[in-house]
């Protein structure tokens, strides 16, 4: 079920601004509880703008609202935050750094 894409996580300006209001604040949650996708990928997977998408990695699984973003096909972007932490595995390959970018992710509409 679903399709295998590549997840990257990262900072956004909204996430940075929301941080000062507290990480349980509505602003921070709105900034971090979302997934950006390529428009063609969304159409092919029958995911509507704002529709819920299930993301599953070796680290875990989350459901987030999907948005069209300026992403090339095959990529999914989730801002740093609680949902991203569930998807990123703790394995660091001997470096101390987990794979916050370039994670295999299975994507399907809910």
């Amino acid at each position, binding site marked *: 079920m679903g399709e295998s894409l590549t997840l990257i996580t990262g*900072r956004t300006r909204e996430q940075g601004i929301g941080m000062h209001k507290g990480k349980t604040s509505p602003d921070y949650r709105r900034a971090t509880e979302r997934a950006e996708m390529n428009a063609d990928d969304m159409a092919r997977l029958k995911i509507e703008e704002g529709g819920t998408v299930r993301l599953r990695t070796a*680290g875990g699984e989350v459901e987030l609202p999907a948005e069209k973003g300026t992403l*090339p096909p095959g990529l999914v972007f989730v801002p740093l935050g609680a949902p991203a932490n569930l998807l990123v595995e*703790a394995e660091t390959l001997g470096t101390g750094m*987990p*794979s916050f970018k370039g994670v295999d992710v299975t994507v399907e509409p809910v």
Partner: protein
Amino acid sequence: MSTTVEHVACTFCGCVCDDIVVELEGSRIAGVRRACSVGRGMIDEYDAKLRRPLVRGREVDWEEAVEAAVTILDRADSPLIYGLSSSAVEAQRKAVELADRIGAIVDTTSSVCHGPTGLAMQAVGEVTCTLGEVRDRADLVVFWGCNPSASHPRHFGRFSLTAKGTHTPNGREDRTVYVVDVRPTGSSKQADHFLQVDVGTDFEVLTALRSLVKGNRLRSESIGGIPMPRLSDLAERMKACRYGVVFMGMGLTMSRGRHQNVGELFTLVAELNEHARFAVIPMRGHGNVAGADQVLTWSSGYPFAVSFARGYPQYGPGEFTAVDVLARGEADAALVVASDPVAHFPRRAAEHLERIPTIVLDPARSLTAGIAQVVFPTASYGIDASGTAYRMDNVPIPLRALLVSGRPTDEEILDRIIEAVK
């Protein structure tokens, strides 16, 4: 009575902008000027209402909290001291002293940020410069795997894009700007050239660039999704520029290859000095994460991932880095200074902090403070405490206290713990 304080330093990100203007009305911050949208909240929304420490959720006096922290650390066989990057150099020194005293592992947020950059630096060296040189001299600027428009919003204006300097009097017109990233961003919109690289292929692209700079001809039509003519054009511009600078970020350190990617970039930059002055500056995230690297290096010999368990400093990325130590369940107590690993670590690592006694020093009630047994609400350096922070180019910036604090600093609390531990 209202007062205007000029040249205030913002410690949110590694730019440590020290030209901020703060309006004070008595002991209240009434306005902030020149700060970016991301840093502004750090000063504007500063809240020192947490005045008393907590032990297991109960408000106690400072002495009782110090005793509780000391009891936890005295009982621990393998304590972890983590964070430090949003604290000041003065407190970072104390954290290392405490680690040495109790045989702890000390690691900083560098390990989930530019730790791989540190590994690359140790392997191949780093040709670098200050941000002042970038502003005054750089005519070719490359942003690789970073997005300052989201993470360091004033970087472009103060140093790297539109800033005017001695040899760049026309600012933006005097610079050619490249962005290399896996997707278009707010930063790539402002560049002259955007090279979209396929995820996980930075190493190959950098190796190809090194080869092109050496004058080799490559047969491939494209590397990592970038057409060869565009890559050749970048190589030629790099060789022909007067003063080139690369700013690099998490796109290299967090993806496949990690320190190998960064090492390849640093080698390219070193080799470019046969043709032009060329330098690289890592885009440091937290306001004093560069200071944490400095302090750990000058006091232990290593920038992060240091264990004092054997009575002398041992370096072990992957072994003594916080995510690994927590995910493997090896730490039996933690002291977290000015950082929020519960909010930022992969879940499997963060949840171990809930299983062990954790001590937190933080001006705000972070998610980590929410699970901690002992919480010290400390003053914030640059707002109600003075200290020193290192900017991303390793220039130390003095931090002044704007307000009178009713709370001790990280340094003072760590000092009291050091005095009391066995």
